[in-house]
């Protein structure tokens, strides 16, 4: 099943075709059922891996290591979670991840807000060039820059320090946050601010009282984006942070396999714990991120 999770979808043109014709009520109902069945199949295939992770996390050893899969965690247990969080370095690495994430979110938010204000509120020489720059910069393969970044950090004796990782993440997060925040700021009607200034507010006062609250959702969305990026990143942390006490959660997770084979139960429990904060925040913000990436791409 998992090897071909994508097989069922090519059917959809056929079903669309069924709906398009609308010959009779009976056929239409058959089409509806077909479409819903197809949608359910797509849903099951897409969600199954995630389900399999969570259900494995709650299973007992014999249920995991059985030659016939146990589809539901009938003997549900928290033992795997206990095993995972009591492993060496787990809490240390959770703390490291949090430090990195909080630093990246705060710094990137401040820098991006300033830059986005400049791009949204001012017409100036070099504005277009800067926009092209921040879009182009996102396209530089991250992997290609690991080597020079590592060399530069090792020259500055910053290898194996969280600060090096924080600065690096910051830069990869910044272009997107600037771009998205710019979109949000443009969305605020100019009249509002001008009205406040007519009423005697200073430019800064208008910014704090009018613009900032209205851009609030944008700030939340972009900070969660930065959070997710920093929380999920693997290669940079893997290369830059060599000692286990300095590593982040993803590096800890990726090195879960020991020489004696993989402890799938605890690994899936750890994976569940790692994804949890991301999933929660992601669900909160998903619409806004999708919007930001393609804002204005379709002229309605």
């Amino acid at each position, binding site marked *: *099943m*998992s*090897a071909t*999770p*994508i097989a069922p*979808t090519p059917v959809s*043109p056929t079903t669309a*075709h069924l709906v398009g014709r609308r010959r009779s009520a009976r056929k239409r109902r058959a089409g509806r059922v077909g479409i*819903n069945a197809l*949608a359910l199949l797509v*849903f099951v295939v*897409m969600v199954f*891996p*995630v389900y*399999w*992770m969570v259900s*494995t996390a709650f299973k007992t050893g014999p249920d995991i*290591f059985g030659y016939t*899969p146990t589809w539901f965690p009938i003997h549900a247990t928290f033992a795997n979670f206990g095993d995972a969080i009591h492993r060496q370095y787990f809490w240390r690495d959770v703390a490291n991840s949090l430090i990195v994430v909080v630093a990246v979110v705060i710094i990137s938010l401040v*820098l*991006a807000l*300033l*830059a986005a204000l400049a*791009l949204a509120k*001012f017409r100036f*020489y070099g*504005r277009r060039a800067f*926009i*092209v720059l921040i*879009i*182009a910069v996102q*396209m530089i*393969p991250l992997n*290609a*820059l690991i*080597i*020079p970044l590592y*060399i530069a950090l*090792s020259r500055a004796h910053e290898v194996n320090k969280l600060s090096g990782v924080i*600065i690096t993440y910051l*830069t990869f997060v*910044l272009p997107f946050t600037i771009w998205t925040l710019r979109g949000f700021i*443009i969305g605020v009607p100019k009249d509002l601010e001008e009205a406040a200034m007519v009423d005697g507010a200073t430019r800064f006062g208008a910014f704090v009282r009018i613009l900032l609250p209205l851009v609030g959702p944008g700030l939340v969305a972009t900070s969660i984006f930065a959070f997710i990026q920093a*929380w999920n990143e693997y290669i940079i942390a893997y*290369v830059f942070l060599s000692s286990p006490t300095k590593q982040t959660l993803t590096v800890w*997770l*990726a090195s879960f*396999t020991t020489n004696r084979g*993989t402890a799938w139960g605890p690994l*899936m429990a750890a*994976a569940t714990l790692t*994804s949890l904060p991301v999933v929660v925040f*992601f669900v909160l913000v*998903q619409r806004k991120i*999708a919007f930001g990436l*393609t804002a*204005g*791409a*379709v002229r*309605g």
Partner: protein
Amino acid sequence: MAAVESELAVSSRRRPRWSRHRIARGVAPYALLAPATIAIGAVLAYPLYLLVRLSFERYGLFELIRHKGVWIGAANYTRILHDGQFWHVVLRTLAFTAVNVSLTMVLGTAIALLLVQLNSFMRMLLTAGLVFVWATPVVVAVDIWRWMVDSEFGVANWTLTKLHFGNFTHHDWFVNPWSGFAVITALVVWGAIPFVTITVFAGLSQVPDELLEAARIDGARPFAVFREITLPLLKPIFVILASLSIIWDFQVFNQVWIMLDQRPSSDYFLMSIYSFFESFRISEYGLGSAIAVVMVLIMLVVTSFYVRQMVKAGEVR
């Protein structure tokens, strides 16, 4: 920063009569942009320069300790260009990217078209499922798929055997690189579909209904409606999605690296893995940099399309 200042000089020269307020207005945007520009410059521009320089140097363990490379001209490039394995890796990477991007775009669009047909409950259910997949961190996703295709207790082998696709008991998917890459492709495409689907769906909902209705009344078949109306209208979105997918799939690293226990055999080398391996496994940083430079150059071609489209999209508002 010097460039910014000279730009400022140019702009202020154009307006001879400037008041204090005018100067403030003129300086403000540059002052606001400065911190972000410095950060981006420090971590992107300088390393990019360093990358190019390293690619012309011999930079091994000795040089790493000495913090200084030895200039050897284009030797790294001639070495990789005459290396059969390098060309193999380039072709493999291009093929991998082509397959993954095509599958992602076709399946992602197909599911988006399916979403449009659904009633609101089913649509919400499927969207929720997609968002969960989208939110799954890559490292976690790799671990899940590694577990599903585990040779002994993996659910994939059991299911395929039960469905009479053959005897998959104790089948190791990674002995043969073709089947190994099939698993990796499934994983990459699975993870990439939600973004494409949800974005295309958002685009689809902006296509005016009257247009589709009119075409249908004129007797156009559903596929013709899609090709003649939906596709041209959504072209900007497709260009952006395809470019992003190419950029992401071209530099796939984690999925291969972690899937194969952080020590993939050379059959599994993609350009990103190859460059990483040359640098951090056998300490040939110069050679690894040369490979990375080739990667960046290939990427530049794709990027130019994407940037053009994004700038256009941004200018609309």
